[in-house]
């Protein structure tokens, strides 16, 4: 029985609702027959009456209510219809939830699910990657699962964490990615994973870009290059130690992310490696991101706007040739 990335998210929520009575899900059109814009909660409202709740179209109110519930001992999961819409709740997520434990010593264990990243034809308001923005602020954990297994275990972990967690699930992977079965064990939260060992170049990436980079590594392998791929899994906290250990093996670094280029996760990776591992670098580190423009609707423009196998491979070859 194959399980998709989306099904893994639904299964994780099923498990959470079944095993922890403090858990409830809050979101737009998630209950009833509709089951959410991407069907991540389909059937859950029937199975868990009163615990999968429709909200008004107000992201601000959704997160604010969830914060209140969390303060009263609940473990709410908030589903944003699209990651882009969470901008309306930024004040609640970052100013209120993110600083609450610091201000009051009372934790806010909320999990906010952001359907993130681009799919063809979704345009500027339904394609954005928000992990860089949320990582910028203290007090929140930002997860970016790239595999079916991580989608499942990290969502369960996210609900278990006492801090607010922004869980960025990639829409492109919802149906594209399949695994044979759900995992029994989870890889530790906050730990990056070496997806593929190599000795010539470290490519640090996360979320859907992991799969583009695997394609690039397969292509470069034919030319004799062994690419080591690091999947960050959790972009905040960032597992600098695993990244540095990888760069120590290869001497070269390329960071790949789907978010906009200014600042963000790839910049942070390069900054840390340059500051803490300058002596490990045999070539100038490089990064590749989406273009610094709003995300285009047209499928052809969209696929050139985000990093793709062609542009990542070209960048990787440049770093390898130095």
């Amino acid at each position: 029985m194959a399980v998709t990335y989306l099904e893994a998210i639904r299964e994780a929520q099923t498990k959470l609702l079944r095993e922890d009575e403090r858990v409830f899900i809050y979101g737009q059109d998630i209950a009833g027959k509709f089951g959410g814009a991407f069907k991540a909660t389909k059937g859950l409202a029937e199975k868990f009456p009163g615990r999968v709740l429709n909200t008004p179209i107000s992201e601000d109110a959704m997160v604010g209510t969830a914060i209140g519930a969390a303060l009263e001992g609940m473990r709410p999961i908030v589903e944003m219809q699209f990651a882009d819409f969470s901008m309306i709740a930024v004040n609640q997520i970052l100013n209120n939830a993110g600083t609450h434990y610091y201000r009051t010593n009372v934790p806010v264990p909320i999990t906010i699910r952001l359907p993130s990243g681009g799919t063809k034809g979704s345009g500027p308001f339904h394609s954005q990657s928000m992990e860089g923005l949320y990582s910028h602020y203290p007090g929140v954990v930002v997860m970016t699962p790239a595999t079916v297994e991580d989608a499942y275990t990290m969502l369960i972990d996210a609900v278990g964490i006492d801090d607010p967690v922004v869980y960025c699930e990639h829409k492109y992977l919802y149906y594209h990615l399949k695994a044979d079965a759900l995992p029994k064990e989870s890889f530790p939260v906050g730990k990056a994973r070496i997806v593929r060992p190599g000795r010539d170049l470290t490519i640090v990436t996360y979320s859907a870009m992991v799969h583009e980079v695997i394609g690039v590594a397969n292509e470069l392998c034919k030319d004799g290059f062994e690419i080591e791929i690091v999947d960050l899994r959790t972009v905040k906290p960032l597992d600098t130690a695993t990244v540095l250990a990888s760069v120590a093996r290869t001497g070269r670094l390329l960071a790949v992310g789907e978010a906009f280029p200014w600042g963000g996760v790839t910049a942070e990776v390069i900054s840390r490696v340059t500051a803490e591992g300058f002596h490990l670098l045999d070539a100038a580190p490089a990064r590749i991101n989406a273009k610094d423009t709003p995300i285009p609707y047209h499928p052809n423009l969209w696929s050139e706007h985000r990093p793709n196998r062609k542009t990542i491979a070209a960048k990787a070859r440049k770093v390898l040739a130095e």
Partner: protein
Amino acid sequence: MPQVPITMPQLGESMAEATIVSIKVKPGEKVSADQEIIEVETDKAVMGVTTPCAGEIAKIDAEVKGTYAVGTVLGYVEASEADAARFQKRAPEQPQGDVDAEIPGRQEETAKAIDNGSGSHFQVDDVDLPQVATTAEAGRGGLPVPASAKGAGYLSPRVRARMAELQLTNADLAGIAGTGTAGRVTIKDLEDFLNSIQSQPAEKPSAIRTGVADAMRRSWTRPLATVGVAVCLDPVLQDRQSRDPKPGPALYALRALALALAEQPNAAARLIGGRAIGLQSIDIGLAVEAGEGIMVPVIRNADKTSLADLTTKYAELVDLARRRRLTSEMTSGGIASVSNFGTFGLDWGTPIPLPDQTMILGLGVGKKTPSWDESKKEFVPKTEAQVTLSFDHRSLDGGGAGRLLKRVIELLEDPKKL
């Protein structure tokens, strides 16, 4: 009067173009600001296009039933200077010291980007754009801008860190042909090289060998030059018979150099930064082969020490050197040295001064050579040796070195003065 364009406005989020339904004004007509002058129709509604400012319609380019994209110029309004200026000012001012102008290739890109619209947009801030051109072109300052910091001489942070760890110097990398950009040595090249020498027989060099290697490497960072001339050794050889203890020819040379330097002390001044460091005393070293390397004990105040005392002192120092009992004090602080490579049967050489000294005098082997005697009109036998002076060309020129060497020769050919 200046003209302000009337453009197809963005009348809705999804609007890309609109069709003209009617045009309510004719050229020459007076209009007020925000007056509705053209009716357009999109797939959603009929809406009005208004004037950007007050004035007189100069021209209408659009036609009824024509479809025009957002931003298309539909006509022009003759406007006051003030209004025209207001519309021109919408483009942001260029920051002072335009970076693009200093990076070859960027101006064209910027021009392209701005050409595309009303001129009021910043260029996309994209890390994927080439930051500098790939070939060196003259920048605004007239200096070529390097396309890359990478080249044969470039050592990456990783290579430098590894060299520091293993105490390698640039000289140690001479045997590696780099495979990186422009032949730079990559970390892989270095590690491959280190692996390749791993299998070869190796032993730890003696401390003295390591010391000489380090001294020579440091010295070789300077511009060194060598001059040479022949000297007749017969006067020295004769004089030597009359002395007890008998000094060797190298000691005569040392004493001659000491006296010459006492007369021309600037010749041995060291240039460090912007300063010429003068001499405190004429302390001269003498290279002695000891074990696997060379030691250079220093004779203090050689200009004020008689040849007889020098001979005694020298014998003591050589003995200590050969028994490896020289202290670092005995080998430091010299201003120049003498190397008697003639003892190895060599005619000529270019010895390298010690790194903290500016010169070294080399003495070749004495050989009987026929020499033309003008008074006798015949060749006469003469013992001749080559004397060379290697020096730091920053401190001394060929002329200065020549005068110093000539004075040394004069003294050697008149050894009573020594």
